[in-house]
């Protein structure tokens, strides 16, 4: 029997749905496992490589160390120090690669290697943490021969190739070149100019052209080819426009960035971009006539399918000449800033005491390589305690070529004799004037008073509540440690297990429900009381109900005490209360005659009891307890009926 019931229940189950859901679940789980394994496999990858070019230089020249790190989560490389070589960071660029739809980043860190003497050097392996694992590059060799006779920076080579010939202004004419004309998609790289100094930032436009109507998906961001230039990170969302070149409409994606040459010489500028084109495939139909009924563009599109065609779009290389920075006239504080800049400074506050921090705000605005713009130092820093400055760069353009770099440096005057912030110097190489320029701010007048806190109690501005030591009310100068520190406290004081505030404790918050509930109940009751107070008829009705209830209790007591007189008196009062409320009359004025006249049907029981009450009062008739109980029931039923 039980077995049959189980079989019936099993048959009743929706096995088909269970099968479908189960299969879907298993398939999803399998897909997730495969995906996780693939992701793990990918994330495990990650490489570091380093190159130095050229491998042979002379004292006074510089080589470039390039460190390339690929991986999803890569840290900065740790560059070892080499005795006799100075490594100056000159830029960072990022490239993106796409592999099976998974985009990974390659970050390149570039360093200028300046030898201080001749000899054969070995650059130790560069290490970096890639995807949580420490990766190490191969060691590199650099051979430095005798001096060229120049300073730390290389002089322009005598055999430097002439500047590349380009259209005036550097911009390309918006026409198709011969190599572009027969392509569905092509890439253009257009620097603002084709001659620049080492480190000079040159705005550059990268444009990807796709013939309209052609569907394409990008598999990577544009990548600069070669290692002669450092480039700013490209924006992830390129600008999308439409252009007509030689009568052909194109959809154009434009990235604007800035590049800078990292070593002197003539170098090609080009970029590459990986994309997948959706190429329409027209059906090859044979028509007996030259042009059939279906030989129409509409039907071509309707009947055609598309095939995916991966392409690597490469721009036509354009030669760019990178000039070295002159060594003559190079200021000592030159940090590598190249461009055109302006300098301003302010100090806040300008009035204060010895030891009070002052915020020195320095702004350098203009165009150029802001990553090499550093904060000017105070010339007479022995009178000041200075702190590491903070800097914020606000670019005015998407390439980060034009903008404003603000520095904030906290400085503390150490002497009351100080009356100004000395002039601040900032040196850069002006690309328009082709010479080094040193900008200087005006001195900023200050009023520094001696430290009044040396005389007053230091903590006078901070009225104490808890004495530090027994008997001491306020921290005073006599209790101070050297350096102005208030002394330690001797008592442990009240201890708390956690610093988290009490209202983060669920018990505390839950307990607030009790007063909240009381408040809601109180408000509800208060509102009900108010409603009753504003409604006299309701109030009368409730009072009458209360008196009737009391009369019924008196009747019960009278029955229990064999008190017929008391019973009928209570009956009369109860009936008068109900009828008085019903007829709007004073209850005491209602007589048996009124009841007989006005009360028909529903009040029959009440009338009968009141007649018996009169009989008991005037004829001296007595009733048993049973009869009184019956009368009570009659009255209670009658009062209930009248209430409704």
């Amino acid at each position, binding site marked *: 029997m039980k077995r049959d019931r189980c079989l019936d229940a099993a048959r009743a189950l929706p096995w088909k749905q269970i099968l479908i859901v189960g299969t879907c679940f298993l398939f999803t789980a399998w897909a997730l496992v495969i995906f996780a394994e693939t992701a793990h496999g990918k994330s495990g990858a990650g490489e570091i490589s380093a190159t130095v070019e050229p491998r042979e230089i002379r004292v006074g020249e510089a080589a470039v160390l390039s460190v390339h790190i690929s991986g999803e989560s890569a840290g900065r490389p740790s560059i070892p120090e080499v005795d006799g070589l100075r490594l100056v960071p000159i830029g960072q660029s990022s490239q993106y690669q796409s592999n099976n739809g998974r985009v990974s980043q390659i970050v390149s860190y570039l360093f200028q290697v300046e030898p201080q003497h001749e000899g054969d050097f070995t650059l130790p392996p560069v290490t970096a943490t890639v995807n949580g694992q420490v990766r190490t590059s191969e060691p590199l060799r650099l051979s430095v021969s005798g001096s060229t006779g120049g300073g730390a920076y290389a002089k322009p080579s005598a055999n430097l190739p002439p500047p590349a010939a380009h259209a005036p202004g550097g911009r390309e004419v918006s026409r198709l070149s011969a190599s572009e004309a027969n392509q569905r998609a092509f890439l253009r790289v257009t620097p603002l100019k084709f001659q620049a100094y080492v480190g000079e930032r040159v705005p550059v436009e990268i444009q990807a052209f796709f013939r309209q109507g052609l569907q394409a998906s990008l598999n990577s961001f544009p990548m600069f080819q070669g290692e002669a230039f450092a480039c700013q990170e490209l924006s992830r969302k390129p600008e999308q426009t439409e252009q007509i070149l030689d009568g052909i409409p194109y959809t154009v994606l434009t990235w604007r960035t800035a590049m800078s040459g990292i070593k002197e010489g003539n170098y090609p500028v080009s970029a590459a971009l990986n994309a997948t084109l959706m190429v329409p495939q027209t059906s090859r139909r044979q028509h007996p006539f030259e042009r059939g009924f279906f030989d129409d563009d509409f039907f071509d599109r309707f009947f055609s399918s598309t095939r995916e065609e991966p392409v690597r779009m490469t721009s036509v290389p354009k030669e760019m000449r990178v000039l070295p920075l002159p060594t003559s006239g190079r200021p000592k504080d030159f940090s590598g800033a190249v461009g055109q800049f302006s300098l301003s400074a302010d100090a806040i506050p300008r009035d204060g005491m010895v030891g009070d921090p002052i915020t020195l705000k320095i702004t350098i605005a203009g165009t150029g390589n802001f990553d090499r713009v550093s904060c000017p130092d105070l010339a007479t820093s022995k009178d000041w305690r200075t702190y590491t400055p903070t800097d914020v760069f606000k670019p005015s353009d998407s390439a980060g070529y034009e903008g404003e770099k603000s520095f904030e440096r906290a400085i503390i005057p150490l002497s009351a004799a100080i009356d100004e912030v000395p002039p601040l110097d900032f040196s850069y190489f002006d690309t328009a004037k082709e010479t080094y320029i040193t900008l200087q701010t005006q001195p900023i007048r200050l009023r520094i008073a001696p430290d009044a806190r040396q005389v007053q109690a230091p903590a006078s501005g901070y*009225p104490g509540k808890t004495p530090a030591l027994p008997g001491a009310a306020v921290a005073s100068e006599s209790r101070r440690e050297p350096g102005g520190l*208030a002394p330690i406290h001797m008592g442990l004081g009240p201890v708390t297990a956690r610093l988290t505030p009490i209202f983060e404790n669920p018990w505390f918050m839950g307990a607030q429900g009790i007063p909240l509930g009381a408040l809601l109940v109180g408000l509800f009751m208060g509102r009900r009381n108010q409603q009753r107070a504003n409604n006299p008829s309701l109030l009368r009705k409730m009072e009458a109900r209360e008196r009737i209830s009391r009369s019924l209790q008196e009747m019960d007591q009278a029955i229990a005490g064999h008190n017929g007189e008391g019973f009928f008196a209570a009956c009369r009062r109860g009936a008068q209360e109900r009828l008085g409320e019903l007829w709007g009359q004073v209850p005491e004025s209602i007589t048996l005659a009124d009841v007989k006249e006005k009360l028909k049907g529903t009040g029959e029981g009440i009338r009968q009891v009141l007649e018996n009450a009169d009989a008991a009062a005037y004829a001296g008739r007595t009733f048993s307890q049973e009869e009184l109980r019956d009368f009570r029931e009659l009255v209670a039923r009658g009062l209930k009926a009248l209430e409704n």
Partner: protein
Amino acid sequence: MKSGWRMRGRLRRLWSIAAGALLIATWVSGATAGQGDDLFEQGNQAYAKGNDDEAISCYQKAIQEAGYSAPLLYNMANAYYRKKDVGRAILNYKRALYLDPGNGDIQANLALARKDAGQVSGPSPLWRRPFDILNVNGWAWMLSGTFGVFSLMILLRGIRPAGFQKRGFRVVMTAAVLLLLTGGVGVTLHIGNLGRGVVTGDHAQLRVSPFDSAASSTPIEDGRIVRMAGTYRDYVWVRGEDGRSGWIKKDAVEPVIPAGKDDLTSG
């Protein structure tokens, strides 16, 4: 009669168990507090001898054993300050001030440490000082108690309206409303510490995105007080008092209010 005796016996047993539990709890907490006191005293002695590292170690153990107290955190901050670890000094002064907001010594030393770190800070404004009488928990308890009294009065008035129509009721209710408002302001002023942190890592960098390979936007100095809003893997998004914001390594910033004793890493 028998059931009455049985009931009394049960009650007596319950009372004995409760009293025993209370005694054990008192003994355990007393013993813990005693250990904390000893460690605190040892820390003070080490501090007096100029041995700041030992003092810090004792204070940290005292926190692990007994818990936090304003003098404990303050003394530890003094030791850090003498060690020239301004970041952790500021962090512990902030924590001490959170527990005892009106303490003049803590305020003065915090201002001193901040000044040494090149940060401008003045005494709290006059209007704020009354709210420094209590810490955030004190204000929360006051708010809760006042709310309880207020609710009880409303409830009693709802039950017996006739008894609560007098002037006294109005006076009590007005006082309760004023206390509620004061408590609310007190809690609001002190609750600001909840999302705050202090930079304790040397040469910390604010990054534009929460990845090791992300470009560094600006350095942020040790001891800077920041607002912490959101985390991603090993990074916390912070905004400084000067408006600078960015992602910083989790181990370079510590919250003023740690979640518990276990979170006490260095502070």
